[in-house]
């Protein structure tokens, strides 16, 4: 990246498409999580979709400008750890109840509260955790590959 006027990187089309794709990718990710369990979809796939959109933005705009445009990306490490902890909590909470880990609530054949298509159960919170973990890790990876913390020794 030499000058702000004529960045030698991708063309304006790539940059615009990258920006435009961001919102739909989040929508698709939400759909993948909500749709899961009865149809195709889970937290990992959803996380990969958003992660790819973030990576495309970094390719199109350069990592620094992508992060300036999307300040929320700065919280990626916390999203990754928070997501992993949420997934662990969703998996291991039955230990407190004396049941095997990953026994989900509500259990099989029990009534599930749903908001629209979204079913409120611990399996979903597990997948939300996985989603946050994947997005966080991909964002951190993109950041580190673009601008490593340490200067490489020549």
């Amino acid at each position, binding site marked *: 990246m030499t000058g702000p006027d004529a960045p030698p990187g991708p063309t304006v089309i790539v940059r615009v498409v990258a920006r435009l794709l961001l919102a739909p990718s989040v929508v698709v990710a939400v759909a993948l999580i909500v749709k899961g369990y009865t149809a195709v979809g889970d937290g990992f796939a959803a996380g990969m979709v958003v992660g790819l959109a973030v990576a495309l933005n970094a390719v199109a705009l350069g990592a620094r400008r992508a992060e300036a445009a999307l300040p929320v990306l700065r919280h990626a490490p916390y999203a990754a750890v928070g997501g992993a902890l949420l997934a662990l909590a969703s998996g291991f909470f039955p230990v407190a109840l*004396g049941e095997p*880990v990953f026994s989900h609530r509500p259990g099989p054949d029990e009534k599930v509260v749903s908001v629209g298509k979204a079913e409120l159960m611990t399996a979903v919170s597990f997948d939300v955790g996985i989603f946050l973990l994947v997005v966080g890790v991909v964002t951190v990876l993109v950041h580190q590959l673009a601008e490593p913390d340490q200067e490489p020794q020549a």
Partner: protein
Amino acid sequence: MTALALSLLVPWAVGLLLVVLDGRRRTVGWLGVVTLGATVAVLGVLAADVLRGGTVAFVTGGWPVGVGILLRADALGVTFALSSCFVLLAAACAETLLGVGQRTLPGLLVLLAAGLNGLFLTGDVFNFYVFFEMSMIAAYVLTGYGGGRAQLRAAVIFASVNLLGSFIFLVAVAGTYRVTGTLAMTDVAERIREVPPNAAVAVAVGFFVAFSVKLGLFPFHYWLPTVYADTRPAVAAVLSGAVANIGAYGLLRFGPGVFAEQLRLSATVLIALGAASIIYGGVLAVARHRPAEMLAYSAIGQVGYVLVAVGVGGPVGFAAAVLYSVVNALNKALLFLTSAVRGPLVAGAFVVGALSVAGVPPAVGFVGKLAVFRTAVDARSPTLVVLLVVGSALSLLYLFLIYQREFWAEEDREAVTDAEVRDAAPARGVSRRVPVVVLAVLLLAGGVWPEPLAAVSGAAADVLTGTANGAGP
């Protein structure tokens, strides 16, 4: 069941938190030590349960067997988990006392404990692979700890060779699923008998190569000297005392536990490779000058004993292999940790470790060596007995070479050039020697009162021969 779940949850959850916090702060370091201590305590409770009441197992989610993933704590797994976590605890303690130099270190050590516990306490081949990768990723990052050129080179070598090993392991897992249609270890052990012999041997060789790379056995050892010699002492202790346990445990779990027939067929090869490891490691260790390098070659030699014991097999051989792995983990942890500190107490601790490696009473290594010798006598092989004696003599020789150079001729230390600033000026504070001294006292106590260790390894061997008898003809 609660203890089994907690042994995964405690290090996993706290490890994630610790990775975010700044590990260079003293409190964070100690939090890591406390977590590892709690993990060891939970594993101790689990071990008591297992030894008293037999295998503890449950299927995740309460699914039927064969649908859910089986988590299973038997005597073999618990023994390895306990010794690995103990080594991690000692290394974390030693490094926190010296001052942690990198923010992620405590978190990575604790996450490594979570990965190791997971793979030692699972009854499913693929779940084993997942936890295996989790611990290896933590280990890759740990190898780079220190951030110098030497450490980065070690990390690159370690990661690339072991990624290749992991890939071979994954191919073997896929092959297992292809030929048996299942990934539960007990089912694989049963169905492998109806598999065409060539396919079964191919899969078994894949597992063997993967674990040998991890363990650093003779033809697969090429990565080991550079990595063990160039990493920080605490990391080298973790790699040889905890991560290498994956290889030993894998050989035992997948050898007699799953591929019993194939193991019987290849016994001669295993014994020959083990013997080659013992002699090669011993001879090259004598020829080296840097203590860390000598200890690295010593590690190659020591794992040879485990392979010989596995090759001879039977209740005596497997018990000897378990016993020797545990003893070797403690020995190596002690010896690598001593290279970071100095003083008369440390010299004494080093002597205990050296005697233990050579198998001289009263150190616990004597018990391990005795078990391996018993195995050789049981195999009615004079060659093997002579070889073990030669190996022990070599280890005594190179360890006292180190002792002489490092602890007697201390003013000549400059002759042993070392780029590492902290290695060149080893710490001398009294409190910093505590982990080393505690390990040494433990090795002596284990030698004076070996019954618990012998009983545990016997129970672990019973797990293996139990399945072997059930699955064999």
